[in-house]
């Protein structure tokens, strides 16, 4: 006899099916989640790349070296060059306007889509080419501002170009020299003719690159040492800091979800292995009475388990991949997924999960089967020694913690979840034992249904407490994910609430302030306060002169910044060191943004030399601030007290919200205030919203997968105790108990378990949510009071209905049949 034969026969018995299902489920959840998350991460990275219009970009203020292009081509990378600069666009009637010129060549963009239309605000289509030499494409509102139509001439510098179309959206609209006026797009071949790009011109050259990761890395390594002052290599992480935290949090959530999937899978395996072992006590005793040795039994079941693990892993890998693929296909459009990422990693994680879960949860009870005394064939009261099971669970728990850590790569995340689980297991388990001990006394004073059910729970006190803990873990993990999802979505919505400013206005002269306010009032435009702004440069720190040029790695260098003054700490700013000044401060002091301070090497008490215009002043750093750059509200690196900065010449700066439908108001604004510089952020806001929506949808999908896994654990948990309940109920029916009494007792028994499990689950979930939100996801934590009654109600309804459903055949088949099956 061999393990394969045993496996085949056990499979028919049905018990092995449960274990195989649990192992398959474990691997499916882990592989599915990992594959989905990997593809999602790749998609989100692609999304970030779209902002660059390439995989990597070399930015240069001077030119793009031909050596770079040659080397990129050698590395099998696709390349294209763009040049951006502000310039005046002049019409035949000598009307003019400041525009952001972008000159491109064929191949642009390498990533993302260039959207155009024939007429301003007309139907949008995807461009399959760039402007031909001699053509110029304009942003919609330039048509009105300049009074031009398609076919009209337009001058950029000395080059006469023909208006030939409308540029609606470029993938990299948000990077580089955006914002100095509406966009115009022209061909790079026409640049020489313009004559505006001279040595020293304020321009931004970009070499766009795309290709395989290896080639990109090779090129990056080659080019980095050659970069000089004013040149930099952009990857995906450094160009979109606004999205950084959003994506980090989304990834954090997905890792938490995956880790919870691992715990749920382990719980499912532990439950089914326990049931498998319990149901194999008699077969093993019979085999031993027929001459099977301990080692033979261990080999047989060990081999059988390995086969289950191999089958389960293989099946789980296939199913997991299919599940991940299915979700990706299902949400392809919403999530912007192009193709699933094929990587070995999810399968390795799945395989190791199966190995660890089976090794630590299934093997211990199975290996103890070999210790069943053969005498059990004569004496059915001899049972499996359960004394070691606590140690098994402890070892298994440690293994799962290590697995979670490995899976998430985040110790704090793992710790937060483990603390929540510990509350459930230790405090909850002890509390459950205590309550169940007292339950019988309560039950004996109550009606017969209560008496039966509470007596049942009390009789199986240990297993009831264990079952309750398992239920609580499953419910806790599900609640936890729901809570964190809620907190994340809430935070994202708060980050970009409706009405978030999507346009900045700079260069507001003091005498124009009132007129601008009147303009905003007339059109009921929501806006932020107007901030004074003075250009300044930090030249010394503690009397040490800072280098005018050089790279950051060579030490602090001079920094130019927009300075402002304020009596009070701006909204959304948090002082992390020092103290904000008293209103009306006459002291020469300064408040710095924390990263700005770090780059300068300035701390509280440092003396900064500021050059403003021709004057130099010295101020002392008295506070360091944390600024929420993601809020898109005006923020400043350097703030001084009004008494210090107000005497200097200044302009004002504000931001406002303009809905897409009122975009035409921008023309009125620019016509009315031709000296204003308007920065359009609406594209950024739309893009960020789009990504947040996609991530939000992904999170919904992942939540669904975990809820499914949780439900399966609950089913496995209910089934684990079903045998004992079935036999007792059959006995009661044989003795004449009515169906209602038995069903009532079962419903009550599971309801009590559900209520206690629900209570424990909420407590554990609150603790873990607190840990995860405050220490991992950097979110604020609020106790969710409504969750407490909900947790209990859900626990009762879910567990009682699962219990009744699982025991339904007890009352629908004759007791004799049930008894004969046992």
């Amino acid at each position, binding site marked *: *006899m061999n393990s394969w*034969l045993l496996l085949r*026969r*056990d499979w*028919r*018995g*049905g*018990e092995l099916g449960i274990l195989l299902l649990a192992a398959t489920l474990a691997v499916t959840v882990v592989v599915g989640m990992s594959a989905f998350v990997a593809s999602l991460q790749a998609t989100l990275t692609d999304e970030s790349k779209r902002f660059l219009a390439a995989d990597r970009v070399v930015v240069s203020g001077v030119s793009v070296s031909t050596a770079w292009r040659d080397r990129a081509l050698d590395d099998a990378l696709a390349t294209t060059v763009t040049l951006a600069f502000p310039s005046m666009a002049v019409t035949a009637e000598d009307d003019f306007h400041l525009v952001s010129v972008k000159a491109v060549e064929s191949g642009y963009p390498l990533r993302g889509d260039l959207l155009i239309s024939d007429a301003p605000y007309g139907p949008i289509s995807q461009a399959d080419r760039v402007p031909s030499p001699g053509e110029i494409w304009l942003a919609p509102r330039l048509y009105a501002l300049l009074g031009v139509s398609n076919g009209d001439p337009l001058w950029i510098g000395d080059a006469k170009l023909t208006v030939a179309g409308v540029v609606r959206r470029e993938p990299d609209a948000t990077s580089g020299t955006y914002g100095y006026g509406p966009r115009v797009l022209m061909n790079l071949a026409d640049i020489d003719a313009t004559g505006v790009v001279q040595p020293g011109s304020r321009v931004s050259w970009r070499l766009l690159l795309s290709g395989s990761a290896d080639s990109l890395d090779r090129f990056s390594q080659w080019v980095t040492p050659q970069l000089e002052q004013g040149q930099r290599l952009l990857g995906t992480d450094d160009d979109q800091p606004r999205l950084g935290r959003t994506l980090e949090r989304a990834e954090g959530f997905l890792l938490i979800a995956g880790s919870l999937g691992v715990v749920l899978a382990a719980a499912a395996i532990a439950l089914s292995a326990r049931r498998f072992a319990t149901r194999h006590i*008699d*077969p093993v005793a*019979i*085999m*031993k*009475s*027929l*001459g*099977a*040795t*301990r*080692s*033979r039994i261990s080999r047989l079941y060990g081999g059988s388990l390995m086969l289950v693990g191999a089958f389960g892993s293989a099946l789980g890998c296939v199913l997991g991949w299919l599940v991940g693929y299915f979700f990706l296909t299902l949400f392809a459009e919403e999530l912007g997924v192009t193709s699933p990422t094929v990587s070995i990693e999810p399968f390795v994680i799945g395989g190791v999960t199966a190995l660890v879960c089976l090794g630590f949860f299934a093997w211990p009870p199975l290996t103890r089967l070999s210790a069943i*005394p*053969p*005498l059990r*064939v*004569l*004496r*059915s009261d001899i049972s499996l020694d359960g004394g070691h099971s606590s140690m098994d669970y402890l070892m298994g728990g440690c293994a799962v913690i290590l697995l979670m850590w490995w899976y998430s790569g985040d110790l704090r995340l793992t710790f937060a979840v483990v603390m929540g689980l510990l509350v459930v297991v230790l405090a909850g388990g002890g509390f459950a034992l205590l309550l169940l001990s007292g339950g019988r006394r309560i039950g004996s004073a109550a009606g017969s249904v209560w008496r039966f059910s509470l007596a049942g729970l009390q009789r199986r006190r240990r297993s009831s407490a264990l079952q309750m803990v398992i239920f609580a873990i499953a419910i806790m993990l599900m609640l936890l994910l729901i809570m964190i999802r809620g907190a994340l979505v809430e935070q994202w919505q708060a980050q970009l609430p409706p009405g978030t400013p999507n346009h900045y206005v700079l260069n507001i002269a003091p005498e124009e302030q009132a007129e601008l306010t009147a303009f905003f009032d007339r059109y009921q435009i929501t806006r932020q306060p107007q901030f004074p702004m003075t250009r300044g440069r930090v030249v010394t720190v503690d009397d040490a002169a800072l280098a005018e040029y050089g790279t950051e790695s060579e030490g602090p260098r001079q920094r130019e910044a927009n300075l402002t003054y304020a009596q009070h700490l701006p909204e959304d700013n948090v002082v992390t060191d020092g103290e904000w000044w008293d209103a009306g401060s006459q002291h020469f002091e300064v408040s710095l943004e924390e990263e700005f301070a770090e780059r300068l090497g300035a701390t509280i008490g440092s003396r900064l030399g500021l050059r403003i215009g021709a004057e130099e002043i010295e101020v002392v750093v008295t506070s360091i601030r944390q600024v929420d750059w993601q809020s898109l509200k005006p923020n400043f690196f350097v703030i001084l007290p009004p008494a210090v900065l107000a005497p200097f010449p200044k302009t004002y700066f504000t931001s406002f919200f303009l809905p897409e439908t009122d975009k035409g108001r921008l023309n009125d604004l620019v016509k009315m205030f031709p000296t204003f510089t308007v920065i359009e952020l609406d594209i950024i806001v739309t893009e960020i919203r789009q990504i947040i929506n996609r991530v939000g949808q992904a999170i919904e999908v992942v939540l669904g997968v975990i809820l499914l896994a949780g439900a399966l654990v609950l089913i496995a948990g209910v089934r684990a105790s079903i045998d004992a309940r079935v036999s007792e109920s059959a006995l009661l029916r044989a003795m004449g108990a009515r169906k209602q009494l038995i069903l009532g007792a079962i419903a009550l028994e599971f309801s009590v378990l559900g209520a206690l499990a629900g209570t424990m689950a909420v407590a554990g979930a609150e603790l873990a949510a607190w840990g995860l939100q405050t220490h991992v996801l950097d979110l604020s934590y609020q106790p969710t009071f409504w969750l407490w009654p909900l947790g209990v109600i859900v626990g009762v309804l879910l567990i009682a209905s699962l219990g009744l459903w699982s025991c339904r055949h007890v009352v629908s088949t004759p007791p004799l049949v049930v008894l*004969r*099956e046992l």
Partner: protein
Amino acid sequence: MIKVTNLFKAVPVGGETLEILRGISFEIKSGDSAAIVGVSGSGKSTLLGLLAGLDQASGGDVIIDGVSLAGLDEDSRAALRAEKVGFVFQSFQLLPALTALENVMLPLELAGANGAEQQATTFLNKVGLGERLAHYPATLSGGEQQRVAIARAFAAQPALLFADEPTGNLDGETAEKIIDLLFSLNASAGTTLILVTHDQRLAARCQRRFAMESGRLSEIS
């Protein structure tokens, strides 16, 4: 041949020692049949467990075909059972997930015997279940299940067959048939048969009869 010498079995119960068997000695020759009768709790099943090497004695020895069980560990006793011992139980002890044929094949497979299926089929035919090979225990009557158990016990051709209340779960008519089957197979195989029973008819069919009372065994003449 099985020889029992001064066999003791005591178990601790609530801090005290309960003596279940108190110095039992007897000898059964190869091919003989013996019945052990006694009231419930007299120690019959305990004695059977010790004779078959399913449990360890507190004192004394059991020698099966010259091999002392006292000197054997659990695995060695299992190996001895695989080679020499067969069982028939009151509750049949068939594996519910296995067919009648597979249940009978089980001891042969555990012993690594060749032609397990053919041999098992032969014995199922002998007990009249040749048509029910692929049936699972749940679909067989009590008498049929016991016949599968008897086929399983004889299929491995043991030198010693232990039966624990083999008719205890059967009605009178079925029990009669099972007794006939047990003894006819025993006679043709030349197996030493030791059975524990309440059933006087069954005990009467054995060559020797012993009475168990308060842990002591005496032969009924």
